[in-house]
């Protein structure tokens, strides 16, 4: 029984934004990892979204009522090359003394994190508003 309107697309958005925040947290945590799991410096992960059609109900003539939600299309590595820093005493320094750092820019990650959390808050506000509307509808006739 769906009582709250618009809940399917909002819950898909909350799940997608949570994945994005998780990936951003992972990027920030690995901002200085010079040796990743494959031996190379950590490569920044990027999340890309795409819309998906979700069914919310059926009309009297049998046709479906659709709404547009969002899902994570893919989580890809960023292929840009990170910075080279001269540090010959570093355990991962190459033969010339340079260390390649991951391509994570902390400022960019913070801005992305703020955008993702604002989007998350906005979707929470949608849920609150839907609940208010449903409560008002239940008071009809009282």
């Amino acid at each position: 029984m769906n009582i709250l309107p618009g809940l399917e697309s909002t819950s898909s958005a909350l799940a997608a934004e949570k994945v994005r925040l998780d990936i951003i947290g992972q990027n920030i945590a690995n901002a200085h990892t010079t040796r990743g799991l494959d031996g190379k410096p950590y490569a920044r992960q990027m999340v890309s979204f795409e819309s998906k059609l979700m069914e919310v109900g059926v009309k009297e003539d049998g046709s479906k009522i659709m709404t547009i939600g969002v899902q994570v299309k893919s989580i890809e590595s960023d292929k840009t090359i990170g910075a080279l820093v001269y540090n010959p005493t570093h355990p991962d320094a190459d033969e010339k003394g340079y260390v390649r750092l991951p391509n994570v820019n902390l400022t960019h990650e913070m801005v992305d994190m703020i955008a993702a959390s604002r989007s998350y808050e906005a979707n929470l506000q949608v849920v609150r508003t839907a609940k208010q509307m449903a409560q008002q509808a239940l008071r009809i006739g009282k």
Partner: protein
Amino acid sequence: MIEANSNIAAQQAFSQSMLSQLKGKDALQPQELQGLPSSDSGESFGNMIGNLVKEVDDKGKVASAETNKLLLGETDNIHQSMIAMQESGLAFTMLVEVRNKLVQSYQELMRMPV
């Protein structure tokens, strides 16, 4: 005396003419009442009550169809279900009030001394 007599005669003549006018309009005898045409609203009272019962039934069906759709998850319009339920309750209340008034007026009629 003659004037008084003529006054009385005038009064009698006046009342005679009134009486004859009244006699012209005969009071309706009971068997003639049945020949009267019914009111021209086109619908008898029994039809109106029958229509009301049908309307109450229809509204109840609409309300239960909407609630059924909501329970099965086919829609998320709870406001339509609430409004349909209230409207069918209203129709039912109206039917009950009409019935109450009918019963009351029947009882009043039966209490009238013949």
